[in-house]
């Protein structure tokens, strides 16, 4: 260790000496001023606070609030390097012989745009992005209303057209008729299995470290695959190479922290971000006299970034995400203690090497390993006799290791190639059930290999006309079975005169790892299982056609965007009648074949997304509306007849308003409306006499008190009540301790205290004739205060 330190010290001293010598040598030359202004090529707005690397000094300076850097340097040749997301990398050679002023226009790809950090209200031309692509910058989330003060990426995205949540408060995404498990969630290119914390209240993405998030609802680039509905690619911020920075935030649900430290200035930096639920900090939450509920979640994102040269960047990332719910009850009548534990955990570690060969080509190499584990456990302990304790435990684990390589090459000025491959090995133990009283049982664990190869050409055939053609080949399986699929991708986006754009796309997607979700009324539990000889991979064809128009009148900026889409899905999975995650625990001790409990079918979804932005000075109003229909058909369900999919929420509407009240205060509000979602309820309810199989006789005495039996009809034959709510929040930017930026957010969740159903269940009431069935709904989120305070240093 000491030797290493010594080596580093000597190296640093030598490097500094060399730099110093060069600076001394240059001091004899006359000095001139370079005034460079950086602007966004699309909006002509100045770009503040971006890093400009000055070579050969390899010194980083940041643009001021006017997007300027002013450098006083000796006469000579210099290169300014700007490599800041979302802009294309730019290197500018300058021969400094006199005082010079230059304006540098930075360009970004079609689907990305620069969001100003400070201003709440920013124009966002709808024509810039193709249909089905949604972009969110990390800063955008700070301006959106947060649930109980918790900023959340998935909740922010769920306000967009074409996206809904499975229930109130759920940090999940149902994209254009697809299920949550049909979305690819990436965090620095590592897929996430579970994306939710605490009953889905918030997502596993810590907003403090989100740099960009791009959601593809259609028009999928060929580099993405593995899920059939959408792709959410989230990249995290790099550690700061120049100064130690940090962020701390406390809210009602969680406490967050972020620390970024330059280990070797301009070369090596480390950052760590953590989040923990406040319930975990309090350790115990007492709810009722005989019940204890513990809600825990926490996540850690750490990264170490090393830039050995200006053409190479290594990023080592670590992610840990854990979630747990425990409920302890004392049943005094049965003299039992009952404990329920639901836990999930994902850990991943990855290394990314980005190498720039030249102005025209760069390569990205990524290796990572991850592990996901879900546990659903129930234990009972007798208060009289401890030896009579029993437990049931259902466990699902996935481990994987992967290598992927992505290469980008600018063939001509208007023609780009993206190509790459990936290899991944999985170790699945999809369902393992453990019992106290009998032998443990599990579905056979399997190892699988996945290989992907892709290539995509992007051609700009006019100033603002882009077409891209791609093909992805994916193979997954093991020595017993292999599945391969070819996935063509085709997209067009063109901007015409009068700020009008058109876009169209066609994509085929395949999904070999299935997420099995409960189809019915209760608590959402997710299990993952790979494709096998009897379980085919899911696949989809997704088509979209969109148009957008920007209007600008003096201070008024107005955009309209309309997307038409159609999605066809094959081999989608669903539990057979009589099964869910809970009954898997008690019904099946041995799994010879997953087909015993799940079945495969097909689905179609189609709809229209409409979104509009209205910006007048400091006021911004956004409306997103979707009209859609989703239908499934399974040979083994609903007598083979088609039925409404659980994602068939016919109308979704969200209205978001933001206004900048002063230089420090801003106000935002959202109103969301979802029409009812389909659920399955009985068509009749009857009672049946108790039958004694030993005597073959009926027990009529107990008939009036016997449990009610549900007689089912069509699947998803009922729709829940419509969901709607309004949230408001006020934000105040100020200086803490006179020098640190701080943000105070206060607000109200569910302003008018709407009791939106979280789940439905059948209960009974009694009258003189006995018990009769009633339907009840349970809502979790009444009107709630929202609060968070963030400080940046």
């Amino acid at each position, binding site marked *: 260790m000491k030797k290493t330190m010594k080596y580093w010290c000597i190296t640093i001293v030598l490097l500094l000496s060399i730099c110093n010598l060069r600076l001394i040598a240059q001091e004899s030359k006359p000095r001139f001023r370079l005034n460079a202004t950086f602007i966004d090529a699309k909006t002509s707005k100045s770009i503040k606070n971006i890093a400009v690397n000055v070579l050969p000094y390899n010194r980083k300076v940041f643009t001021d609030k006017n997007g300027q850097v002013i450098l006083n340097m000796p006469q000579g040749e210099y290169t300014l390097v700007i490599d800041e997301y979302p802009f294309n990398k730019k290197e500018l050679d300058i021969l400094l012989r006199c005082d010079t002023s230059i304006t540098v226009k930075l360009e970004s790809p079609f689907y990305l745009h620069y969001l100003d950090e400070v201003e709440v209200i920013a124009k966002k031309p709808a024509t810039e992005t193709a249909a089905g692509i949604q972009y969110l910058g990390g800063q955008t989330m700070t301006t959106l209303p947060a649930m109980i003060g918790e900023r959340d990426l998935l909740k922010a995205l769920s306000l967009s057209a074409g996206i809904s949540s499975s229930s109130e408060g759920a940090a999940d995404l149902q994209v254009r008729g697809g299920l949550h498990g049909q979305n690819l969630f990436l965090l620095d290119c590592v897929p996430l299995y579970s994306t939710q914390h605490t009953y889905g209240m918030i997502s596993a993405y810590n907003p403090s470290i989100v740099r960009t998030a791009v959601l593809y609802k259609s028009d999928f680039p060929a580099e993405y695959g593995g899920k059939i509905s959408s792709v959410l690619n989230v990249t995290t911020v790099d550690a700061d190479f120049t100064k130690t920075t940090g962020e701390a935030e406390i809210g009602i649900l969680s406490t967050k922290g972020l620390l970024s430290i330059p280990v070797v200035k301009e070369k090596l930096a480390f950052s760590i971000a953590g989040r923990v639920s406040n319930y975990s900090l309090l350790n115990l939450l007492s709810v009722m006299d005989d019940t204890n509920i513990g809600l825990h979640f926490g996540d850690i994102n750490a990264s170490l970034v090393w830039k050995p040269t200006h053409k190479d960047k290594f990023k080592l990332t670590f992610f840990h995400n854990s979630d747990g719910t425990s409920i302890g*009850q004392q049943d005094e009548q049965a003299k039992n203690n009952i404990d329920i534990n639901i836990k999930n955990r994902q850990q991943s570690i990855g290394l990314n090497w980005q190498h720039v060969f030249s102005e025209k080509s760069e390569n990205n190499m990524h290796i990572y390993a991850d592990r996901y584990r879900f546990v659903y456990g129930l234990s009972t302990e007798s208060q009289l006799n401890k030896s009579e304790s029993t437990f049931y435990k259902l466990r699902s684990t996935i481990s994987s290791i992967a290598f992927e390589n992505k290469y980008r090459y600018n063939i001509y000025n208007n023609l780009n190639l993206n190509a790459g491959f990936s290899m991944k090995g999985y170790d699945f133990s999809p369902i393992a059930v453990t019992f106290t009283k009998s032998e443990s049982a599990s579905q056979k664990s399997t190892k699988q290999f996945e290989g992907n190869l892709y290539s995509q050409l992007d051609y700009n055939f006019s100033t603002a006309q882009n077409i891209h053609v791609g093909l992805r080949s994916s193979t997954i399986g093991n020595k017993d079975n292999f599945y391969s699929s070819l996935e063509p991708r085709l997209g067009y986006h063109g901007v015409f005169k009068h700020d009008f754009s058109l876009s169209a796309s066609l994509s085929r997607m395949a999904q070999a790892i299935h997420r099995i979700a409960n189809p019915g009324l209760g608590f959402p539990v997710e299990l993952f299982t790979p494709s096998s000889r009897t379980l085919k991979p899911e696949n989809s064809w997704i088509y979209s056609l969109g148009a957008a128009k920007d209007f600008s009148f003096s201070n008024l900026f107005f955009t309209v965007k309309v997307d038409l889409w159609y999605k066809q899905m094959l081999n989608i999975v669903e539990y057979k009648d*009589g099964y*869910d995650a809970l009954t898997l625990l008690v019904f099946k001790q041995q799994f010879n074949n997953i087909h015993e409990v799940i079945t495969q079918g097909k689905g179609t979804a189609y709809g229209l997304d409409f979104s509009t932005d209205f910006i007048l000075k400091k006021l911004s109003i956004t409306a997103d509306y979707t009209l859609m229909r989703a239908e499934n058909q399974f040979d083994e369900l609903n007598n083979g007849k088609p039925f409404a999919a659980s994602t068939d929420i016919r109308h979704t509407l969200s209205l978001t308003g933001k206004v900048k009240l002063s230089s420090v205060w801003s106000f935002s509000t959202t109103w969301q409306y979802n029409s009812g979602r389909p659920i399955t309820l009985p068509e009749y309810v009857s*009672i049946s006499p108790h039958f004694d*199989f030993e005597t073959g006789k009926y027990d009529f005495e107990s008939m009036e008190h016997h449990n*009610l039996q549900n007689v*089912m009809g069509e699947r998803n034959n*009922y729709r829940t009540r419509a969901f709607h709510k309004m949230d408001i929040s006020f934000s105040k930017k100020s200086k803490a301790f006179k020098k640190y930026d701080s943000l105070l957010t206060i607000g109200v969740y569910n302003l008018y205290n709407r009791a939106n159903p979280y789940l439905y269940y059948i*209960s009974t009431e009694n009258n003189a004739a006995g018990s009769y069935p009633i339907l009840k709904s349970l809502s979790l989120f009444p009107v709630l205060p929202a609060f968070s305070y963030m400080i940046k240093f």
Partner: protein
Amino acid sequence: MSLNACIRTTTEDIPWNTEPVPVVFSIISPGRAVEVVLSKTQQKKQSVNESVYPHAKVFFAKENTAWIELTRVSLNSPVYTDSENYFEIEPGKTYLLKVEIDNLTLYAENTLPCEKATITNAVYCETKSFYNYSYGTLKVDMKFSKNKEYAYFLYALSSRVNEEPFLNSESFFAADFYIENDIAEFNLNLITCDPYLEKYLKAEYIANNFQNFSDGDVNAIIFSYGGVTPDWSNVKRGIGLFGSYLVDVESIRTEENGQ
């Protein structure tokens, strides 16, 4: 902060049919008398003393034979029996059931399992005595039918022996099977169910274990059934169950085995 304070329950409009519909219930097995029970779907305003379909007629038949009308036990008891012991139920045979209520005719048919599962070995060993009960281990070896459509469970002393609704393997072991102290011998029944009875028993198990929660009960969140209850009704133009089963009985002497 209390989660309980956040939980609110709302009684929703009843989505299911509120007009009463006749329910037919009959489970047949070789060696048991044929019995059919009539009832109605559950309604809030149902009267306790109401006579259920007093003019209903119930017919029973073996396939390809004539219908025989069953006899109602009494006006207040909607149970119909084969009072003449006309029918002898046989494995693998198909039986028909018809119920006439005013202008409505309900119809169902059922084919009994061809082959029953058998108990090859069963041993009960008492391990301890607690209050009025003796506790012991119960080990049962069985041989299932080759027909994959059937489901099996063990039944003794008027209740199911296995905790889960159906057996998943041909060997069963219970660590704490208990019986009353004064029972010296009991019958262990291995039941072979037809697919309709299997669906019904699965639905019954779900209803008994994962439904009916009190207001504000946190269990409603965790233990609420998240699947779709099997459609167990096999009665045409009405609802109900016409099921069948075979039984294999093994007599177990507790004293001898416990020694």
